[in-house]
């Protein structure tokens, strides 16, 4: 991804005008207010049409993979909540699952259900924030506040059970850190009842809006073949008709026991990706509704040793985060710390398709395309 373009490297061409004398090179970010986080895009423009987009990464690189090598198998999980901070539960979940795979522990059914419930609530919160931010990107401010109103309820639920609102560190190898708060079921019911009514407002305000539709329909098209070639995953790829939901393809925990549909749209444009996420929210609500009254009794954590030692070998596990496939690959030499850790983050692969999607589009549409990709920069840079 990171390659200096010949235009930037050649001193004779570093002027504002590009090689043909008509191209203009613009730096978007890392502090541009219309971008998400510290993403630096070098855009080559011909008039208003985008010729090339080159993401320059590294502004929020914290060497998390290297850091994890010096942490034990219990400790490294907390660092992953700082990668994709909007789906921190799913990141923690994947790491805990990978360690459990190595230790060959079966986690209790109660812990499995709690994990899935937390994952789906996080997915809802993440999609709500994405919805508000996307609407703000294309020029509507009110949806942002409405999205945060609903997200606040999920954050309160998380705060009560996990203790924190964003970087939870609630999943531990063997189950979850603490049992559900006594208020959990009541509050989730209240939230579901509230959100089911409010999600229609989302449609009324943004989905049905002609201006929004004109700004997203036919914009940022990517075909199914290209989406697969770029390694895209998650709602961004499902908008192009790629079946890639890890929850369906490789079910983990109790996802094979709950009823839900993998949302697929085939149009491949911004509006299709938007619809996938909107419909996914409804699927998440349905999963939470199925599980919230059927939490099995029992332990919330399997018995594990105080010091975890993974047997020598390589382990990989994956989950579906709000952005796509998140994978953890652990190489263990039999010690208490991993020999090597590799994270497969969904944002990185999705960002690589940005250049392909924006080519020939107007610069104003680029923001909408970026918004529907749902980029989280700490996840890309790590």
């Amino acid at each position, binding site marked *: 991804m990171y390659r200096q373009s010949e235009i930037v490297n050649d001193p004779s061409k570093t002027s504002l005008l590009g090689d043909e004398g008509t191209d203009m090179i613009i730096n978007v970010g890392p502090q541009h207010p219309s971008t998400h986080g510290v993403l630096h895009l070098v855009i080559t423009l011909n008039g208003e049409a985008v010729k090339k987009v080159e993401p320059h990464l590294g502004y929020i690189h914290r060497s998390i993979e290297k850091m994890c090598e010096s*942490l034990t198998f*219990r*400790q*490294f999980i*907390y*660092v992953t909540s700082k990668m994709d901070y909007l789906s921190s539960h799913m990141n923690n979940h994947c790491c805990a699952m990978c360690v459990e795979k190595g230790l060959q522990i079966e986690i209790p059914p109660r812990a499995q259900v709690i994990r899935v419930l937390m994952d789906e609530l996080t997915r809802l919160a993440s999609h709500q924030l994405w919805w508000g931010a996307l609407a703000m990107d294309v020029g*509507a401010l*009110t949806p942002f506040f409405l999205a945060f*109103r609903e997200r*606040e309820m999920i954050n309160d639920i998380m*705060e*009560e*059970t*996990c*203790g*924190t609102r964003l*970087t939870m*560190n609630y999943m*531990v190898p063997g189950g979850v*850190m*603490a049992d559900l*708060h006594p208020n959990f079921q009541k509050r989730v019911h209240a939230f579901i009842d509230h959100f089911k009514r409010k999600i229609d*407002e989302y449609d*009324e*305000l*943004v989905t*049905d*809006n*002609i*201006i929004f539709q004109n700004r997203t329909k036919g914009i940022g098209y990517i075909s199914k073949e290209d989406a697969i070639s770029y390694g895209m995953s998650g709602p961004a790829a499902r908008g192009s008709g790629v079946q890639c939901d890890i929850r369906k393809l490789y079910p983990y925990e109790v996802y094979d026991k709950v009823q839900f549909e993998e949302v697929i749209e085939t149009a491949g444009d911004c509006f299709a990706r938007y619809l996938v996420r909107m419909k996914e929210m409804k699927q998440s609500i349905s999963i939470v509704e199925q599980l919230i009254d059927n939490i099995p009794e029992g332990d919330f954590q399997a018995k594990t040793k*105080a010091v975890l030692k993974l047997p020598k070998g390589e382990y990989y596990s994956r989950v579906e985060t709000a952005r796509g496939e998140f994978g953890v690959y652990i190489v263990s030499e039999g010690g208490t710390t991993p020999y090597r850790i590799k994270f497969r983050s969904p944002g990185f692969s999705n960002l690589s398709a940005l250049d392909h999607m924006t080519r020939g589009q107007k610069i104003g549409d680029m923001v909408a395309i970026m918004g529907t990709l749902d980029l989280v920069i700490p996840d890309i840079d790590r």
Partner: protein
Amino acid sequence: MSFIKNYIGDVWGAVKSLAAGMKLTGHYALHHKKEKITQQYPDNKDTLNLPERFRGEVVLIHDENNEHACTGCTACELACPNGTIKIITKFDLTPEGKKKKALDTFVYHLDLCTMCNLCIEACPTSAIKMDQTFEHSVTDRSELIKTLNKPGSKIREGVE
């Protein structure tokens, strides 16, 4: 002719969908008093109810006799990913004249802490817990390095 028809149709559709959105926004503008969701933070300090599990900072639990349950086993120190906790131990003499390991100073670097709760999970005697305080700003960085055991405190009888 159909172009003009389409154009007018588009404009009409845009105005209609805009009005639908404005209606919703207007509804909230008029009914905001019933559905106030933002908390005015410094004003609601007295009524602020933080959940019991809220991770504010690590504290050593002292009872009314100024006794704690920390044996100085350093399980929390080993569990911490950031080197936030430093346990300094000393040797006490028991009445039988034997040497016994005990806590001397529980040093807690709040500036390094990420509130991951791993130390609380690791503690075998439940001597530490997360407190609900969250206003951690200070003017001098050295104030963030705290000694958690109170002066004169000692270990509770019977805690091994």
